[in-house]
């Protein structure tokens, strides 16, 4: 018999019983539906113990890598500690080591966590202004390339946390952040696959991390970045990205302007439209979408209809916090 620890309680799981059956038979309610490893309603995460491969069948690679599994298909092969996915609650103390402008609205916040901090470029953290107030910000840095964590924070008029970061936070300050969360990141394997990345505003943050991560991993397929804003002033890292595209033949950078005439070197139009028009069919491509929620949700649907498989679409809509 294997032991399953869930929310501080330990349960015995008999031979041939699934984690879902075990917890339910002990009166622990876990949401489920198909009980056949398909609908993914009973998604859980293992913090200890090896997982049987069939319990991760059909999951996105980024979820599998973080030890998510389906409770209905998991007959434990180890003692396990498991949780329901409610990540982002842990608090890790960190020191602010720099705040630098990227353009007139966006700053780069550099952080050094006090303890070793594991993350994948493109994931995000919850950033605490105080014990009760936090907002999500994406990781623009790459663990194996950068010696600190970098966030790109856009100032939202009267925004509680972003305005505080822009106006009050200073190098030397100490803050709390959560562990890294989210499944919008680069997974190695399939180095020939085309990568399409579309972002608006500070939605470039996770994409910048993902691109540098993929290039450092030796990704060989085309990597196409489309970054959009109203005007040239809304874009940033333009020189860095142009330089990156000169250094890597397979990386292309298309900055897009939705208002007014586009100067030389920029595209005129809504970033999603420009990207879809230039790439055509997306069958076989992997797609990353970040930033404005309306853009991201429209892009999910349109890139899927253009041929990308649902399993290959990764998206982080920057939804405002519920007030």
């Amino acid at each position: 018999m294997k032991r399953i620890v869930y929310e501080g309680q330990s349960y015995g799981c008999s031979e041939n019983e699934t984690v879902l059956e075990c917890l339910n038979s002990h009166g622990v309610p876990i949401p489920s539906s198909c009980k056949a490893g398909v609908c993914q309603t009973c998604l859980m995460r293992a913090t200890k113990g090896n997982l049987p491969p069939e319990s991760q069948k059909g999951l996105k690679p980024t979820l599998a890598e973080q030890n998510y599994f389906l409770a209905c298909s998991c007959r434990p092969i180890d003692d396990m500690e498991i949780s329901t996915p409610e990540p982002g609650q842990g608090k890790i103390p960190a020191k602010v080591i720099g705040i630098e402008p990227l353009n007139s609205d966006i700053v780069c916040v550099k952080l050094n966590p006090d303890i070793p901090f594991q993350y994948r470029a493109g994931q995000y953290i919850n950033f605490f202004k105080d014990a009760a107030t936090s907002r999500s910000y994406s990781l623009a840095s790459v663990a194996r390339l950068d010696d600190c964590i970098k966030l790109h924070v856009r100032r939202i008029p009267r925004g509680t946390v972003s305005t505080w970061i822009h106006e009050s936070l200073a190098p030397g300050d100490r803050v709390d952040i959560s562990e890294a969360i989210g499944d919008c990141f680069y997974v190695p394997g399939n180095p020939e696959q085309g990568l399409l990345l579309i972002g608006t505003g500070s939605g470039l943050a996770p994409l910048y991390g993902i691109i540098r991560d993929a290039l450092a991993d030796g990704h060989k397929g085309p990597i196409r970045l489309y970054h959009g804003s109203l005007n040239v002033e809304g874009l940033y890292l333009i020189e860095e990205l142009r330089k990156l595209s000169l250094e890597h033949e397979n990386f292309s950078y298309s900055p897009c302007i939705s208002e007014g005439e586009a100067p030389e070197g920029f595209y005129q139009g809504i970033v999603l439209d420009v990207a879809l028009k230039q790439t055509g069919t997306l069958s076989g491509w992997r797609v990353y979408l970040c930033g404005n929620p309306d853009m991201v949700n429209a892009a999910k649907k349109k890139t899927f209809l253009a041929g990308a498989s649902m399993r290959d679409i990764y998206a982080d809509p920057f939804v405002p916090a519920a007030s």
Partner: protein
Amino acid sequence: MSDTLYDKIGGDAAVNVAVDIFYRKVLADDRISRFFDGVDMDRQAAKQKAFLTMAFGGPNKYTGEDMRRGHAHLVAKGLNDSHFDAVMENIAATLTELNVPGDLIAQAAAIAESTRKDVLGK
């Protein structure tokens, strides 16, 4: 193991391919897209996979009661026989696109058809 319809169609791998094709058809079908147009497409895709696995006679533990409960919120939004027919068409078109032989398509259609009363809450 004897070959079930699900095995003959190609099992889990075939359903994975079928889901993308089916879901694309459904989203592009003005008659029914509104029922599927959830914001969370990932969750929807997983559910559509459960849907097709069932229609292909694959492993599932859904009961008629589950189908009733699972579609009740759609019936409340006006789901009726014409929408059910449209879904049946899309299932057949998906299988045709995958070059599944006609007799197997007919079997899948029969399984899906058998859920009509429950799905429509009749």
